[in-house]
């Protein structure tokens, strides 16, 4: 089994970190994983996304053309990635900043107010964490909640400053 997950949002919403946490958690549970941040056309103040592949088998390509899971934290990301999704995929939409609805009918869509959810939990930065919790509820193949929480500590300690900058 293989999940191809894209997490997308504004720069600064922590999408890269979220992806990394997923990857670490899944790796700890014996999965093959890969993580690539977008750092291409994006710029300061622009959008950011990352591609996470989680699989039982060796991973052929870490790049994703047709995600089986898409988490979008802002509206441009929904517009950009929805159409690329694999049929039958799972789409998680952050309704705090996204008023639009998904158009595809061959996928499963979950709407959730991540930012609100996160702000209630004390930080407006961790909309991404809320999204992850929501994800593994839907797809428990990926990892356990416990593994995810452990990964959080690990990931945070590795992160110190943004690297994925332009030029």
């Amino acid at each position, binding site marked *: 089994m293989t999940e191809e997950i894209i997490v997308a949002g504004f720069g600064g919403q922590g999408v890269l970190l979220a992806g990394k946490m997923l990857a670490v958690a899944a790796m700890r549970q014996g999965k093959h994983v890969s993580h690539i941040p977008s750092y291409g056309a994006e*710029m*300061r*103040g*622009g959008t950011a996304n990352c591609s996470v592949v989680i699989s039982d088998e060796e991973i052929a390509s870490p790049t994703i053309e047709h995600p089986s899971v898409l988490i979008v934290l802002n509206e441009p990301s929904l517009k950009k990635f929805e159409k690329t999704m694999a049929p039958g995929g799972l789409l998680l939409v952050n309704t705090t900043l996204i008023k639009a609805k998904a158009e595809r009918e061959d996928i499963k869509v979950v709407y959730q107010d991540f930012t609100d959810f996160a702000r209630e939990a004390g930080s407006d930065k961790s909309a991404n964490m809320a999204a992850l919790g929501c994800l593994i509820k839907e797809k428990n193949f990926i990892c356990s909640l416990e593994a995810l929480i452990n990964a959080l500590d690990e990931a945070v300690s590795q992160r110190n*400053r*943004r*690297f*994925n*900058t*332009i*030029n």
Partner: protein
Amino acid sequence: MSKMTYAFPQSLSETRTHYCAGCGHGIVHKLIAQVLDELNIREKTLLVAPVGCSVLAYKYLNVDGLEAAHGRAPAVATGLKRVQKDKIVLSYQGDGDLLAIGAGETIHAANRGEDITVIFLNNAIYGMTGGQMAPTTMEGQKTLTSPQGRDIADVGSAMRACELIDTLEAPYYIERCSVHDVKNVNRTKNAIKRAIKYQVEGRGYSFVEILSMCPTNWGLDPVKSAKWIEEDMVPYYPLKKFRDKGEEA
């Protein structure tokens, strides 16, 4: 009757910048646009943009623009000015660009007294690449490539561009300013205006250094960044006019 002051300068494009919140590049762009409006030279201004956070400066100013390779802006500006002799050529550069990889081009364009204006944004760091040590990084300042803080015993002290250029004969005008508060923003605007005016008059090389905030890579919020300039940078980088041949005369 109400009147708009501080209107949007004509020379500034409406394109939103990609700069981080509180970044000094935005302030300096605005000042340049105001000066071009006031001197009425937008249509004859040619901007050489560097490689650095301001790599897209030519998209934000409503003037013709040209890219330079990292560090080479003064040489590119030299070639351009020697063809377009009646135009106003601005070389806009960051500290990594102007003092590290481009130190040679910087000194030689100044030494020739090339008839261009160099606007030098000193934010004590490599902004674009995510916060590495620049030639202007302060002693003890932590960056990605000086994780323990700049160790002057190992890599030397922060370099002072105005002082270096002030040893050369040809430059016509050299001044260091800052954009950390209102008074200094206004002084910066005057310096830019005077520098560009001298070029309009064909007086030769002018150089304006501007201390500027990089909240993102300093790890400080914009207001604290402004304070850091005032308290830490200004004592090391004295804000003053180093040379003004127009006044001497």
